[in-house]
């Protein structure tokens, strides 16, 4: 249904962090909270990518994608052993 949540990886433009945030993770958290009060970050990524992962509805994901500083909101993928 439209309320079903899915995991997304949210890529952030680190250089676009607004003044006033001490740490990027605070900015990530504020961005997430702006579309969902209940959503929690699963991981904060610092080296492999800039961003975080979280469970969101499709609407929340789309809304987040329109926030300033958000580069992409990509659905989680499943990989398998070879």
């Amino acid at each position, binding site marked *: 249904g439209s309320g079903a949540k899915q995991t997304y990886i949210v890529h952030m433009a680190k250089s676009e962090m607004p003044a006033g945030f001490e740490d990027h993770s605070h900015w990530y958290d504020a961005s997430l909270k702006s579309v969902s009060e209940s959503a929690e970050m699963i*991981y904060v990524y610092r080296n492999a990518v800039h961003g975080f992962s979280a469970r969101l509805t499709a609407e929340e994901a789309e809304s987040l994608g329109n926030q300033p500083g958000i580069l992409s909101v990509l659905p989680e993928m499943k990989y*398998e052993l070879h």
Partner: protein
Amino acid sequence: TTRTPSFLGLDKNAEFFPESDVATDVIVGVLDTGVWPESKSFDDNGLGPVPSSWKGVCQTGKNFKASDCNRKLIGARYFCSGYEATLGPIDESKESKSPRDDDGHGTHTASTAAGSVVAGANLLGYAPGSARGMATRARLAVYKVCWMGGCFSTDILAAMDKAIEDNVNVLSLSLGGGTSDYYRDSIATGAFAAMEKGILVSCSAGNAGPNQYSVSNLAPWITTVGAGTLDRDFPAFVSLGNGKNFSGVSLFKGEALPNKMLPFVYAGNASNATNGNLCLMGTLDPEKVKGKLVLCERGINARVQKGSEVKAAGGAGMVLTNTATNGEELVADAHLLPATAVGKKTGDELKTYLFSDSNPTATILFEGTKVGIEPSPVVAAFSSRGPNSITPEILKPDIIAPGVNIIAGWTGAVGPTGLSDDPRRVAFNIISGTSMSCPHVSGLAALLKGAHPDWSPAAIRSALMTTAYTAYKSGGGALVDVATGKPSNPFDHGSGHVDPVSALTPGLVYDMNVVDYLNFLCALGYTPSQINTLARRNFTCDSTKKFSVTDLNYPSFAVSFASQMGGAGGGGGSSSSVKYTRTLTNVGEAGTYKVSVNVPNSSVKILVEPQTLSFSQANEKKSYTVTFSAPAMAADTNVFGRIEWSDGKHTVGSPVAISWS
């Protein structure tokens, strides 16, 4: 592994690979199902203190203590938050919420890459010998990202994030997914950041061969590894009541079959199920298989599960035949009952016998381990194949390495079949896949990193690729593809089979840095946002510059022309021409290299300019161009060739794959 070190020439050339502190400071990170730390492959005897560069930890958790790490296994972490967010809490009665490997796959890959030397290794007596990883002196850091329900990209990315922070030198990922754009693929994005930090990322090509366009992990900053066979086999013959014998393979060890011919039955005729021939669980009629040998066919369920079903139904043994999907490739399994695997042709003959003889009988004769099998290597049928479905101008896979019937360390949590009803526990297991070939290359890359600490990931990959071989060293022509029985081509084997001793002194390398890859992204037409997603920076492609994927300094050449029926860029119906630029860096002595071009199709022209490159000092760079010209051809036509630079001592080879689509 007990055979690949000698197959790769490592045993006779130990002096080429220094056992200095530099070599022992190389850290290989393995993203997989975790690790069984009690395996002797992780013994740290003879290793000095943990490298000062190491920033990682040994994470505690269920059945795993910090003290399970040592000077060989220097780090172990687990990542399951993404998995649990999607699938719910891990069932800790079935798998350990810790770095411990309850599956076996991770212990196998880690020990293949950098396991210590273990004397007297074998699986149930098969493949005996002294087992070792490729880089015996390197350190291991294990990142558990795969669980019973799969491997989730959020966890993989988190593990890569930590591995970069931990300061690994090589990352080995024997896993993959679909083929999506690089900026959408977590392994590709994580690998970009790793590459930038000087970490070589080696990934398995996938087991979706022999289908075309089946390679995964296609990004050019990843080393993509396909699989070949060894010169070792485990023969187990099928002997029929009509006197005919057929070759098969098996790792069965246990109570032998009665010393007589047994009734032989086709599973499809011993079941009421539609797919009875596949020996799926609960489909065989015990009354029809009891005490008999049963012929099952591959498909849907695991090979070892078919043996388990035959056993459960009271069968005395199993012959498992390939179908057209697998052809003649034989993969050995440690079945729970006497069983052997046969190729499709043999399977067809067995079925003819079963359907024509009123009282068919058979038995299986187990022959143990044989080495010196020729030809070897051959490209494994399952090994995923090119062309590259995302960027056809980048040839993938990059290289092949041993990946069939590989013995390496195993978990103590499950038996060699991995089945819940397998009570056996073994220190080593024999399994197959590009999962097994990938850590071979990861370990070899660690050896090169130890020998040449200043080489970039691209330089190490180049050395491995340009020195790979495509023809049998003992003569006999080009490497064979077991899927066809014919010579393999660069879409099957990439640059060829890895040759680590030659890779140590490649003479010249095709080096690349981050800017080269950023320019490549510009050539792909990536937007600034997509580049930022992938490369974590604001980067605007210079609008005054012309970017081309053909200018990426890749050690191989893939040329994609439009076919006769037209299409953009190929000039349908007329001749097409495309120019590639490459730069070679001297990593050897001063010398003059001359080029030679081999292309069997006279209508295809390959012009290299200049034809001679002289290097007077180390790290000197020289560029050349290659112009490929060809008339329009039918769609799906492929022409293969080779470009080699040689100074008489070194040969720097590049495969050429030209395709029309």
